């Protein structure tokens, strides 16, 4: 009887398996890797959704360069990936998936000048599946760059907000200068995500770098990849901010209320030496990695609330964290900046409603 049953079962499986259809054509239209020849490139390309930034040597002739591009299996790319392009301007590639239905449009920015000032005047929807906005910048050469990423990207995975202002990071016209400033608000999290994670609180965090979505659900701290190439010695991080911690309950990562804890904001910048062009510090080591050269951190007294009722100025010196002697001939470096409406927002704790506004940020360098 046992034998008969198992025979029947295998027959059923065989029957069902017999009906397996041909494999569908791939719907993926990705640029998996992008690089420029070593004569012009200063490092590895960094991906921020469909924006690819690559630092190039100052004065390099970019007018006719053949990049190295790899794309999804079976996909096609326009213009041809083996034809030379003028990377002194923004170059756009359109990748079409093997199924012919899905397309992605990539922008390549070859950047030759470092950026020191961030005024949050330009915001764009960088994600084709999300209504949130991310600040973009125009560098001294007038080139559009995408140094910023934010916690909006992860939050967009599970919310269906239709207005950019609903997301924890958005532009506000209540600015210190110019038209816009960056506003960050800590919001309620989704709690249980498919049995993988528990997120009671989602802070608004804006940072230089890009989220690596591969780890977004497994280890969110690993997913936040901080920094971009920086070729000067940073001296001070300056800017204007307005912060009010929520008077509501402080919630810990397990979702428990902690009456003994008050929320505070995070404003800091980390300058670190890289061992390889692709090296990035992430949420697990951004304040502890031995390669950290110096850190500018908003002092504790200024984190709980900004002084006064309007924008307050912060002017924080970079403090040495190691005996490393900065040498741009021998080493390469990266710099990251982060703003968050809850200091421990990366661990999914904070108070819902804490609000941080930041504007006119500058990294003051040694001339």
């Amino acid at each position: 009887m046992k034998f008969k049953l198992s025979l029947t079962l295998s027959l059923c499986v065989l029957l069902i398996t017999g009906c397996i259809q041909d494999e569908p054509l791939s719907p993926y239209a990705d640029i998996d890797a992008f690089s420029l020849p070593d004569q012009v490139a200063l490092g590895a390309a960094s991906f921020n959704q469909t924006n690819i930034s690559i630092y190039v040597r100052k004065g390099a002739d970019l007018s006719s360069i053949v990049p190295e591009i790899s794309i999804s299996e079976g996909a096609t790319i326009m213009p041809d990936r083996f034809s030379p392009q003028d990377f002194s301007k923004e170059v756009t590639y359109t990748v079409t998936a093997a199924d012919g239905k899905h397309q992605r449009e990539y922008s390549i920015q070859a950047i030759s000048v470092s950026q020191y000032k961030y005024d949050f005047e330009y915001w764009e929807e960088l994600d084709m599946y999300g209504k949130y906005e991310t600040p973009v910048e125009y560098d001294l050469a007038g080139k559009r760059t995408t140094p910023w990423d934010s916690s909006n990207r992860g939050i967009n995975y599970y919310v269906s907000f239709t207005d950019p202002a609903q997301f924890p990071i958005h532009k506000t016209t209540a600015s210190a200068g110019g038209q816009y400033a960056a506003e960050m608000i800590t919001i309620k999290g989704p709690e249980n995500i498919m049995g993988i994670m528990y997120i009671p609180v989602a802070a608004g965090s804006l940072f230089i770098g890009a989220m690596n979505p591969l780890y977004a659900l497994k280890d969110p701290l690993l997913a936040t990849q901080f920094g971009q190439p920086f070729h000067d010695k940073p001296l001070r991080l300056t800017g204007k901010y307005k912060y009010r911690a929520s008077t509501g309950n402080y919630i810990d990562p397990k979702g428990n209320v902690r009456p003994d804890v008050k929320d505070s904001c995070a404003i800091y910048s980390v300058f670190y030496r890289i061992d390889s062009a692709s090296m990035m510090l992430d949420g697990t080591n951004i304040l502890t990695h031995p390669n950290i050269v110096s850190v500018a951190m908003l002092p504790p007294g200024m984190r709980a609330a900004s002084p006064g009722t309007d924008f307050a100025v912060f002017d924080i010196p970079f403090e040495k964290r190691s005996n490393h002697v900065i040498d741009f001939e021998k080493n390469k470096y990266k710099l990251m900046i982060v703003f968050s409406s809850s200091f421990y927002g990366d661990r999914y704790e904070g108070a819902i409603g804490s609000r941080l506004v930041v504007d006119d940020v500058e990294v003051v360098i040694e001339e």
Partner: protein
Amino acid sequence: MKSFYIKIYGALLLMIAINGAGFAQESFKHWEYKAFAGYNMGGATPLPLPAEIRKINSWSPGFAAALAFHATRWITPSWGVTSGLAIDLKGMNIRADVKYMTTNLVIGEGDNTGTFTGMFTGKNRTITRNGYLVLPVLAAYKPYEKWTFRLGGYLASLQDANFAGDASDGYIRNGGAAGDRINIEKATFDFSDEVRKIDAGLMASADWFFTNKMAVTGQLSWGLVPIFPSDFNGIPYKMYNVYFMTGIAYKL
């Protein structure tokens, strides 16, 4: 809803009785009652299998028992009408490799509810165990003393639902094919609350009496109503209850 079914059932039995009364009385037994117990094998399955399913790694019926009572009114010695009630547990455990499978998972509760939409490639395990109260209406045909065949339909009311599982060893593209690629080691889903409250379909069965009282029964029930409502988008294709029950029947 339940009283509605009971009314229908009563009306049917009445119809059977009235029809039967119209025929000349012959020397055969008009009413036959049968109880049977069986085991359901099958699955909630898309038909045909969609291209997203690349490989079935394993399938097992789990505990899927059926208990039923049938009443047959024989109108002629070889033709009759059968109805009754059955408690059917329909379930399966299935492991499959899937590719480019679109899914929408509801996350969070209350004001906080969000949807995780994406295209998953990896391994899927689904465990279903749905309990139904089943009302069959069948034409019965007895060509030989030992054999009875029935063909008709059924209406079923969902009493208890379980449709859950996990996605593992793969990745999801958030939003769709062009979205962020997120690795998934193991994510759970539970669509139990979404399972449609009714099921209906075709039913065919055969009884072979190996003694005067006892028969071996085989019964195919083929759902024609997708097990999830049309506005459900957790699974990109329609699934139907297709089960074959084998059991032992006892003539009362």
